[in-house]
């Protein structure tokens, strides 16, 4: 038998087996690819929902970290995986921004993935070193505009949430600052705490502890409403920067072509996970809330993904920073 005939036979078998497999799905562990390192904020979100989804699906959902190239390596692996529901992706806002940030992406974001549902929207905070002169958001904007040659804005590297939020901030106040990139949030936060840089915009997962410990100063949260965990902090809209409402939203994806019943089952398990009391409690400690049931659906997720790609495209192109 030649290689081609084996391949053809295999394709034929898998087509025949398709519908039957979808009904019994899942019969073996499901791999949830997280395109970032273990222990990071995205990994934490993934592990929390994977644990609950395992109970609903009756099969273990195993988190596999495939880090690298701003999340595009892991996403690329899922895009090329067998569309049988046994390989899924948990990605954040980077799934939408990488479509513009990477001009040579090895997959097509809208064509190669099947959306399963939105998971959570982690708020961001605009923070500064402890001894930064501005008292509130209004003073911050004035100060930054007057000293734009001196003020430094840290981020965790090209394509990171802090990089995106920083771009949005500069876009909102129509002022270009000196951005200082770091390899990850840890070293960036270290230099902010040590007063080596002035400003940063990062997820509450990374900043809440430092804000509460008075190691850094916070000006606003990027959510529509104030947060329970940081009640004193105004929202960006209250502080006069309405266009800056942004969150690090997370979603689950399957490869395109995954049978509809399988997607439905995954989506259902995700919705159950998001209503799980442990998940809600843990999310609250991270300063975030699970998405409501109607947002954890393939259709709502697809709509959000398209809107976000369209929102970020002009901002990234105007900033002129690309990851390749």
């Amino acid at each position: 038998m030649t290689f081609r005939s084996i391949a053809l036979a295999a394709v034929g078998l898998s087509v025949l087996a398709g519908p039957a497999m979808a009904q019994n799905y899942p019969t073996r562990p499901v791999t949830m690819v997280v395109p970032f390192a273990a222990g990071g904020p995205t990994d934490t979100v993934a592990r929390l929902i994977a644990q609950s989804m395992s109970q609903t699906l009756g099969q273990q959902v195993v988190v596999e970290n495939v880090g690298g190239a701003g999340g595009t390596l892991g996403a690329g692996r899922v895009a090329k995986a067998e569309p049988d529901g046994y390989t899924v992706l948990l990605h954040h806002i980077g799934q939408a921004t990488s479509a513009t940030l990477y001009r040579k992406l090895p997959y097509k974001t809208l064509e190669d993935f099947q959306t399963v549902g939105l998971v959570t929207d982690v708020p961001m905070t605009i923070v500064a070193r402890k001894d930064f002169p501005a008292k509130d958001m209004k003073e911050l904007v004035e100060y930054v505009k007057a000293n734009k040659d001196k003020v430094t804005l840290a981020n965790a590297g090209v394509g990171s949430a802090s990089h995106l939020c920083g771009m949005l901030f500069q876009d909102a106040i129509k002022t270009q600052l000196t951005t200082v990139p770091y390899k990850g949030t840890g070293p960036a936060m270290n230099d902010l705490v040590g007063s080596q840089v002035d400003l940063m915009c990062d997820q509450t997962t990374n900043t809440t502890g430092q804000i509460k410990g008075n190691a850094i100063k916070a000006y606003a949260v990027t959510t529509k409403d104030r947060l329970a965990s940081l009640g004193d902090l105004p929202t960006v809209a209250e502080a006069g920067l309405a266009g800056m409402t942004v969150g690090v939203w997370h979603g689950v994806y399957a490869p395109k072509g995954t049978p509809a019943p399988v997607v439905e089952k995954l989506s259902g398990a995700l919705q159950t996970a998001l209503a799980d009391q442990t998940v809600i409690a843990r999310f609250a400690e991270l300063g975030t809330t699970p998405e409501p049931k109607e947002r954890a659906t393939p259709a709502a997720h697809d709509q959000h993904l398209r809107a976000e790609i369209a929102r970020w495209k002009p901002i990234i192109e105007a900033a002129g920073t690309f990851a390749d």
Partner: protein
Amino acid sequence: MDVLGNLAMGMGVALTPLNLGLCLIGALVGTMIGVLPGLGPIATIAMLLPLTFSLDATGALIMLAGIYYGAQYGGSTTAILVNMPGETSSVVTTLDGHQMARQGRAGAALGIAALGSFFAGCVATLAVAILGPILASVAKEFGAPEYFALMVLGLVGATVLASGSIVKAVAMIILGLLLGAVGSDIETGTPRMTFDIPQLADGINFTVLAIGLFGVAEIIRNLENPEERGVLGAKIRGLLPTWQDIKTSAAPVLRGTFLGSVLGILPGNGAVLAPYASYTLEKKIAREPQRFGRGAVEGVAGPEAANNAGAQTSFIPLLTLGIPPNPVMALMVGAMTIQGIIPGPQVMDTNPQLFWGMIASMWLGNAMLVVINLPMIGLWVRLLMVPYRLLYPAILLFCCIGVFTVNNSYVDVLGVAFFGLVGYGLTKFGFEPAPLMLAFVLGPLMEENLRRSLLISRGDPMVFLNRPISLGLLLVAAALLLLVVMPSVKKRRKEAFQE
């Protein structure tokens, strides 16, 4: 602050049967994965993270910390026995440790490594308890210019790692810097020397390079002479270090402990420099520096102590500032957040049980590691009696598994094979891989901090000289460079005069 009272409370937390058991499990698992080449603490902690969900936060962190320092112990075992450094920290140990093993003194090398590490661990734990909070605030003064100057100093020191020609060492340093430059540019994201291979976008993985250049190259070299059984060229002489070994090692261990403790505190992963710095120091002040690289016991004792001290004190930035100085600590942060503890400077006040419990468990863990490791030495040494034709396929297999788990990528496994061939070629021409590895680790850090300093100072290079710490470090580097270059310049002059 009442350190003793706090430590007593910490002991109370760490000595509960559950936490004691978790500490033991951590130390055991850590030793095991440290011994398996390639499989490092990062991959293991990542795999074990889900297991910690059901534990309480303190217990979970005690176990993960045990894995971390257990792996530092175990990592030196493979470095000594089969010349295979699984971690940045054990590269230096291969230099003299493996030479000792070749001379039949593997037991002595392992024993000195364990005892030196234990001593360093105890001292560093005390340092964490007493000075942690104070030191952390001093370490915050370290900005990009200071890190740059520190890395320059480290790189100048790299020439000392070579036991042969200085010119060849410099060539290896430059090659290491080039390899370190592979990957995305940190500021612009532009890919450099990646040849459109997406797996290279984040640069070459340390484990891939180290296992290839050291481990696989060593295997190929051993297989050249099928008659000789690799490491077992010499007869095994004694399982434990002699009294003479211990006396010779005492001072290097003390110096190594000090260096490692200081460097470990730096939140910018200063601990990577610790073993290199200690080796450089020992070789510089030794009466017969030519013994180094040929099985000098000081070359094992100092760096091993420095390495373990650094591993302990690198908890200071994590526990007191909430900032992870290296990838393993970043995983600890992940474990803490999953447990609902948001890392930050407030942890010490809000979770004193966790803070002091962990510190107390470090000491217990170190004691357990000695108890686990000393009796094991006999077993490890006997492992070398396994015929090499059976041993090497097993080593290769474990390497492949270990490397694959780092990123779940087969490209990394191919990379190991490639660098194995490169490493074999290099040693055939008399080039040593150790300076290359150090340059590979330090190069990206140096570049990053150089560019960051200049970004923040708006292109003014005086920033390196205006800040006292950075100026001081650069001056030491210049002095060290002179020390290295002078003898060879003098020699050449003499030769010129003779002609």
